[in-house]
């Protein structure tokens, strides 16, 4: 199906999300859509899929103008979208998720739907148990299910918004294979990403959005430098990794084990030294998150000890860990990290130990001004956190980390950030390392892990690998470990 987007414009209040974007995609192609965060990619695709209505402009499918009042309209016409945060029902089963939204009878036939799901899954080599509860699936599997659901509704245009966030290397390979196959069948695929190499390896053509407008387009062979220039309109400086001088041990884990309702962490011995950065890799839910939260005192270990700077913190709750220089920075910034309805100066007052009874407003404002300057936050001391962009929220969050710190535990430090913000975040984290802090972070972005870790620990089903040297471990080997291959050899060796 040929798609034409003609002069699409969409504003939210005073913000122009899409500014007269025109884009034509012939049937049977994989069209890449590149751009940094906030460039308007998602908005444009939500308009194409009927989720949002444009202020002006026209959508034509095979030359015929269409107006979608509702995403279901778009699906009926053959346009389906896979959203960045999976839009499905975690508490229902796989089968129920599959059936929902399909034109079933009043009393749907479970057996017929199961057959249809199995058949489709078989064609693409996806292993999905229809009876499983959705919240036991990985993000990658949920994505596969959603693709199958859309295909069962016979969509001829498939839109994927940042589909590779949070999925494993193996799942990514499988996803790309599937997309290529769909294109060969004559379907049109729109692939939204801010990762250059993915777009370069997969897409037949690429369009780049910047600040809501179309900045340019390319066909293979791609030139990375040109794409970067199109995306940012400016060069980016990446922080260089300096090998850590081995300092004294900051974090010592001995036979540490913890568990949540799904997973039990195998006993772990591990030392982290001052100035060192260690990345934790693995599929979502393999234990790396559990380990971070256990070290932070958010989860109580079931066995073993945690020592920080020689002090036994086993079983201590987070506030007391914090008093001993341990901070935890969560990934969900507005859910767990910041208070959306409060401003930066109030946040600064919150993180200080409450020595005074009354608030010293002038001083709080002054401190906030200082952080805004130092961390290049776009905002003022009294702008509310939820009004800041993702990158600025992350900078604000980092500006709240007051030295001296012993240990920084951080989840997905740059998730959802554009390259410039990501670079700024790592520059800041490095500065803490130089001041003697150690960093333990987890990321689903393998390149981030490889670029910033002094050592890497891979998790699989609660087991952890010995620390690996990133310079001597290539991407493929990491991918194999993450996918659960080669663990018996590790255990034997």
């Amino acid at each position, binding site marked *: 199906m040929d798609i034409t987007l003609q002069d699409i414009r969409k504003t939210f209040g005073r913000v122009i999300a899409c500014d007269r974007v025109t884009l034509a995609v012939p049937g049977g192609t994989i069209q890449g859509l590149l751009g940094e965060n906030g460039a308007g990619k998602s908005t444009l695709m939500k308009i194409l899929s009927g*989720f949002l209505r444009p202020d002006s402009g026209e959508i034509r499918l095979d030359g015929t103008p269409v107006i979608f009042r*509702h995403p279901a309209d778009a699906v009926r016409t053959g346009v389906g*979208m896979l959203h960045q945060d999976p839009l499905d029902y975690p*508490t229902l089963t796989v089968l*129920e998720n599959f059936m*929902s*939204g399909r034109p079933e009878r009043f009393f*749907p036939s479970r057996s017929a739907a199961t057959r249809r799901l199995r058949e489709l899954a078989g064609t693409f080599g996806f292993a999905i148990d229809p009876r499983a509860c959705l919240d036991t699936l990985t993000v990658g599997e949920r994505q596969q299910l959603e693709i199958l659901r859309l295909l069962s509704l016979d969509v001829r245009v498939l839109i994927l918004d940042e589909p590779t966030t949070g999925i494993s290397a193996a799942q990514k390979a499988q996803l790309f294979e599937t997309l290529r196959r769909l294109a060969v069948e004559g379907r049109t695929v729109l692939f939204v990403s801010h990762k250059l190499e993915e777009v370069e390896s997969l897409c037949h053509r690429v369009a780049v959005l910047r600040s809501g407008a179309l900045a340019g387009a390319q066909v293979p062979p791609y030139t990375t430098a040109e794409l970067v220039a199109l995306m940012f309109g400016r060069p980016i400086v990446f922080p260089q990794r300096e090998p850590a001088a081995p300092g004294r041990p900051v974090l010592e884990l001995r036979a540490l084990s913890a568990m949540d*309702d799904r997973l039990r962490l195998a006993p772990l011995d591990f030392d982290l030294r001052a100035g060192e950065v260690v990345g934790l890799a693995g599929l979502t839910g393999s234990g790396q998150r559990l380990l971070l939260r256990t070290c932070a005192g958010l989860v109580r270990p079931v066995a073993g000890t945690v020592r920080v700077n020689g002090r036994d913190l086993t079983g201590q709750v987070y506030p007391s860990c914090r008093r001993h220089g341990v901070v935890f920075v969560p990934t969900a910034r507005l859910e767990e990290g910041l208070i959306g309805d409060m401003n930066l100066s109030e946040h600064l007052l919150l993180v200080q130990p409450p020595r005074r009874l009354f608030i010293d407003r002038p001083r709080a404002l002054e401190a906030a001004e200082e952080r805004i300057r130092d961390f290049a936050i776009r905002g003022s001391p009294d702008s509310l956190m939820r009004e800041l962009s993702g990158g600025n929220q992350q900078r604000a969050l980092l500006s709240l980390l007051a030295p001296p710190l012993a240990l920084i535990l951080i989840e997905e430090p740059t998730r959802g950030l554009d390259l410039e913000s990501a670079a700024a975040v790592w520059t800041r984290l490095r500065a803490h390392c130089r001041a003697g802090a150690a960093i333990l972070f987890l990321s689903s972005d393998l390149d981030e892990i490889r670029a910033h870790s002094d050592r890497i620990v891979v998790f699989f089903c609660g087991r952890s690998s010995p620390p690996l040297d990133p310079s001597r471990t290539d991407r493929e080997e990491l991918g194999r470990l993450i996918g659960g291959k080669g663990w018996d050899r590790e255990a034997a060796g």
Partner: protein
Amino acid sequence: MDWPTILLTGLAGVLATAGPLVVAAIGEAISERAGVVNLSLNGTLILSAMAGFAAAVATGSLAAGFLCGAAVGAAAALLVAFAGITLRQSQVAVGFVLALTLRDLAYFLGAPVMGAAGPRLDILPVPLLERLPVVGPMLFRQDVMTYASFLLIAAAWVWIYRTRPGLTLRGLGEQPAAAFVRGADVIRLRYLYTVAGGALVGLAGPMYSLSVKAGWKGTISGLDGLGWIALALTIFGGWHPLRIAAGAYLFAFLQWLGVVLQPFLPGIPSQVLQVAPFPFMILTLVLVNVGQAEWTSRLLALLPEGGRRRLAGLLRLLRASPPAALGQTFKRE
């Protein structure tokens, strides 16, 4: 009378007195499954009891009484839905204020019919089935609304778990955006289910004033507090019709037990025995929630594998988590 007869008539009475609670709690569950919490139950129940009774007295028709009650319940729910969905006000706040206001409104408007003689629903035995031993007198010598409450349990279960709209309903309170991309008109469905649930709550009122606690006696009608119990039952029942019914019957049974045991416990004032089931509800709520608490999972982790599995399974069975998007407004953009 001998003991078995007392027990049987007692249990039959328990099924009847629990009827309105079952209906109201299932009504609330339907509304909450759609993502709207209607906290006005206590007021709605009392007002619809009064209105239903007044309508029945005025027209002489019981059906008119029940219809009037349902209409009152639907109207109250519509207010909650309008404030919560369209005006984006706190559903809890509006519901709470309505719970107090509608109660006082019932006392105010009900003054003229206070103590009036009114019609009452008759027992309607089911031919043949009523002769069954044990089950007959318990289940099949009830009034028509009690039968309706039995049917409602089954119907609600089938609707929620076995039909296409029921699947959408379950998604609506869980992840409205997902229901939206699957073709559901979130706003309209939420209105619809809230009003339908409210109508059920409104039916429960006349079930009291025209049957279980026939008549309207103003502030001493003995209805104050039951709406809050129905709300607690919704949670205790994990938004699941069968479990809600079980909870309602348990509550009615305990109240009955209090009445039966009173002669044997002269030291305890009757007022105390009457409220005794309420703390019990709280205890069950604690039990239901305990499976989610962090310290339980920590305690569980200390147990040997086999026992842990079984206990965790039991807790999961008891556990009930509310619809994830309960009380939140859905915004397309």
